[in-house]
């Protein structure tokens, strides 16, 4: 196989951080090349460089043996480089065809374009209706729009940035079949992920990044997942210790909870029922946008629901606002760290006050006791190993992993009866993720009920006792985790929708 793209000595520094340092590797024509690394390892900066969104400080790239210096994405697309973004680059209010047209240099007239979208999407087993509004599509369908947009340009290199995080296991299988077909036809694929099993199943070469540097090349078909993980993280990881607490009485009971969506493209909750016992971890899985945020807001009290739908230890809390629910022992940690779980420009102490006032006794005669608040914040920082100069710094200045440890720690230290967390380890490095999972398990062992809403199925299988799937705003039956296989979970999550295998 010949070389398609060659990177040599790429370096890019931002104020205070070197995102890429002397990165060199090459991608073979028709190869599926993995770029492996933790969050913050510099993967995104590197692919943005290849796609022309970032100019490197030094270093050079050669495409097909010729110097390649894209100054904007237009140049990259003209040279045959296409990219499927991690956070979708789609416009919700526009139709599928309009979205595709926006990603092309010289789109044909709309009618021809719609016909070509149908042809290409069906040839690769990714059926799409060009007239539908993207806002009405599922996450998996949206990704198809992105992929079809790329395929219509006959790219020689297709960059996929974390494509499977929004897909069910079945959809992942079909995506891989499509990618293999493309590789056979001679398209190179640069596949970015931190999911090792996927890379071992799909890729034939891998470059591992850590701290902005290339720390190794590996053949993912031969290397074991443990070897890859060690190279990626730099240390050995210890899986969380299982606990031995007994499961007690039901402490959180949700029955027949229905709620209209908050926004136009939101998901309504349909007749959701669940029960959590003391000392138990209930895992709720689901592809993004199936009602996770709505479920969390109904439990936290941000949105109130009909009477008798949410019971905490037998008391109806359905009509209570968040502060009253906190006082009663129902605590929540939402998904979005900056702006929802924490106020970005406020200090850690102030952020600790925001949820801890009632349970930590931070009020004295109606006035805030800042000394108590500070010591509460210091406790969180010490016990959860939050790396920060002190409680006075702004939440915004913490890295994702550190802020997440702070946000989870803030709730855990309040000794909740029930803790509901949404995506507790999203975008968090592996060691911080392990610490957070351990903290949740320890809390359950002390007799609290835990609800973990997550899109990371491995995480749910690792820490939860029972698993339920959220699909289109409806929650399925909770099943003991020990008896589940990935296959079954995939079907619970809604299977592969209307997808079919690519006709290879």
């Amino acid at each position, binding site marked *: 196989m010949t070389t398609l793209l060659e990177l040599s000595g790429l370096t890019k520094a931002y104020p205070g951080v070197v995102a890429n340092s002397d990165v060199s590797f090459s991608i073979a024509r028709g190869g599926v090349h993995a770029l492996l690394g933790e969050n913050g390892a510099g993967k995104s900066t590197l692919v*943005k460089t290849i796609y022309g969104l970032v100019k490197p400080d030094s270093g050079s790239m050669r495409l097909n043996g010729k110097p390649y210096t894209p100054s904007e994405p237009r140049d990259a697309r003209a040279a045959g480089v296409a990219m499927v973004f991690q956070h979708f680059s789609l*416009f919700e209010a526009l139709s599928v065809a309009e979205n595709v047209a926006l990603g092309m240099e010289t789109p044909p007239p709309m009618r021809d374009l719609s016909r070509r979208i149908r042809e290409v999407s069906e040839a690769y087993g990714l059926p799409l209706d060009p007239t539908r509004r993207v806002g009405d599509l599922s996450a998996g369908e949206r990704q198809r729009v992105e992929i079809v947009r790329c395929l219509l340009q006959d790219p020689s290199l297709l960059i996929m940035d974390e494509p499977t995080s929004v897909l069910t296991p079945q959809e992942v299988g079909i995506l891989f079949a499509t990618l293999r077909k493309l590789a056979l036809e001679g398209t190179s694929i640069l596949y970015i992920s931190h999911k090792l099993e996927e890379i071992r199943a799909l890729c034939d070469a891998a470059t591992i990044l850590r701290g902005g540097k290339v720390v190794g090349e590996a053949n993912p078909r031969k290397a074991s997942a443990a070897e890859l993980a060690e190279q990626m993280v730099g240390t050995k990881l210890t899986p969380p210790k299982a606990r031995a607490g007994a499961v007690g009485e039901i402490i959180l009971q949700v029955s027949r909870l229905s709620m209209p969506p908050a926004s136009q493209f939101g998901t309504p909750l349909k007749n959701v029922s669940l029960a959590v016992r003391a000392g138990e971890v209930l895992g709720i899985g689901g592809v993004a946008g199936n009602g996770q945020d709505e479920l969390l807001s109904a439990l936290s009290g941000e949105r109130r629901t009909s009477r008798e739908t949410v019971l905490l230890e037998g008391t109806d809390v359905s009509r209570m606002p968040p502060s009253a629910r906190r006082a009663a022992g129902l605590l929540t940690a939402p998904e979005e760290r900056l702006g929802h779980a924490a106020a970005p420009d406020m200090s850690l102490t102030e952020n600790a006050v925001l949820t801890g006032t009632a349970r930590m006794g931070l009020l004295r005669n109606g006035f805030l006791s800042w000394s108590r608040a500070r010591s509460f914040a210091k406790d969180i920082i010490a016990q959860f190993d939050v790396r920060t100069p002190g409680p006075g710094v702004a939440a915004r200045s913490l890295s994702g992993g550190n802020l997440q440890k702070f946000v989870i720690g803030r709730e855990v230290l309040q000794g909740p009866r029930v803790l509901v967390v949404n995506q507790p380890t999203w975008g968090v490095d592996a060691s911080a993720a392990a610490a957070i999972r351990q903290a949740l398990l320890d809390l359950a062992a002390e007799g609290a009920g835990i609800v973990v809403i997550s899109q990371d199925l491995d995480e749910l299988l690792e820490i939860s006792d029972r698993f339920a799937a959220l699909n289109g705003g409806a929650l399925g039956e909770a099943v003991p985790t020990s008896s589940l296989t990935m296959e079954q979970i995939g079907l619970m999550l809604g299977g592969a929708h209307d997808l079919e295998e690519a006709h290879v």
Partner: protein
Amino acid sequence: MDLSSISPTLLIASLMVAATPILLAALGEMVVEKAGVLNLGVEGMMIMGAISGFIAGVETGSPWLGFFVAAIGGAAMALLFGVLTQVLLSNQVATGLALTLFGLGLSSLFGQGYVGIKANSLKRLDMGFLSDLPFFGRVVFGHDPIVYLSLLLVFAVWAFLKFTRAGLVLRAVGESHDAAHALGYHVRRVRMMAIAFGGACAGLGGAYLSLVRVPQWTEGMTAGAGWIALAIVVFASWRAGRVLIGAYLFGGIVVLQLNLQTAGAKVPVELLSAAPYLVTIIVLVLISGRAGRGGDTPADLGKPFHAST
């Protein structure tokens, strides 16, 4: 009261004249908002258009040159807003309000020596026998060129947004500037052009007041027309056709209530004068209630864009 003194022909003809300044300003603001920018300075840009157009019209004697200078004046005000909000990332709401106050003040400074003068006005088009037809002659074929220009502009803006690639890019920028940036579109450049267009339209609308409708210069002569234009954009759900309906509805009630006043209607004058605003607001509430959830609002309207990478 004597309703027979109200002639339907004249009523319709004059409502079109009354609505044209608002139609022009609202159409420009709609394009700006479609690109994701909320410019609350429409009033300020209109009045600057009114005075700069009036000065140019008086000094050169040509109303056409007046309209041309008014468009430039409105666009210059808009670009001031554009530099502040798009380059220096100032707050769009505060900057827009400041632009209105600034425009009102600056225009009365410029207008010091022009109070009480009359400018050459635009003649109504004479379309031969067509203009002599009963009713239709006056209502359809008996207007000045700017009225036809504004109607043409409604169609042009609709077609631009719906059918052209540039229009698609503009809508995309207003829908998600981050996604547009990731695809390599120049968010700031697109928005600056939209802002300048919006300013030019507001300037034309202002000049129509000072050069055709009144036609004189008085301080603060826009009298809230810019704010009505802003409201009409919202109630029209950012659609060119509905902007036209909204502007003509408002213009129609303005003219009707004036006619009712002269006909001696037994309704307090204050209520009649307030009627156009009241009716427009009520219609606004009804329509937005029916549309529900505000689904047509450009998703990134009023949000500042800063390319972080």
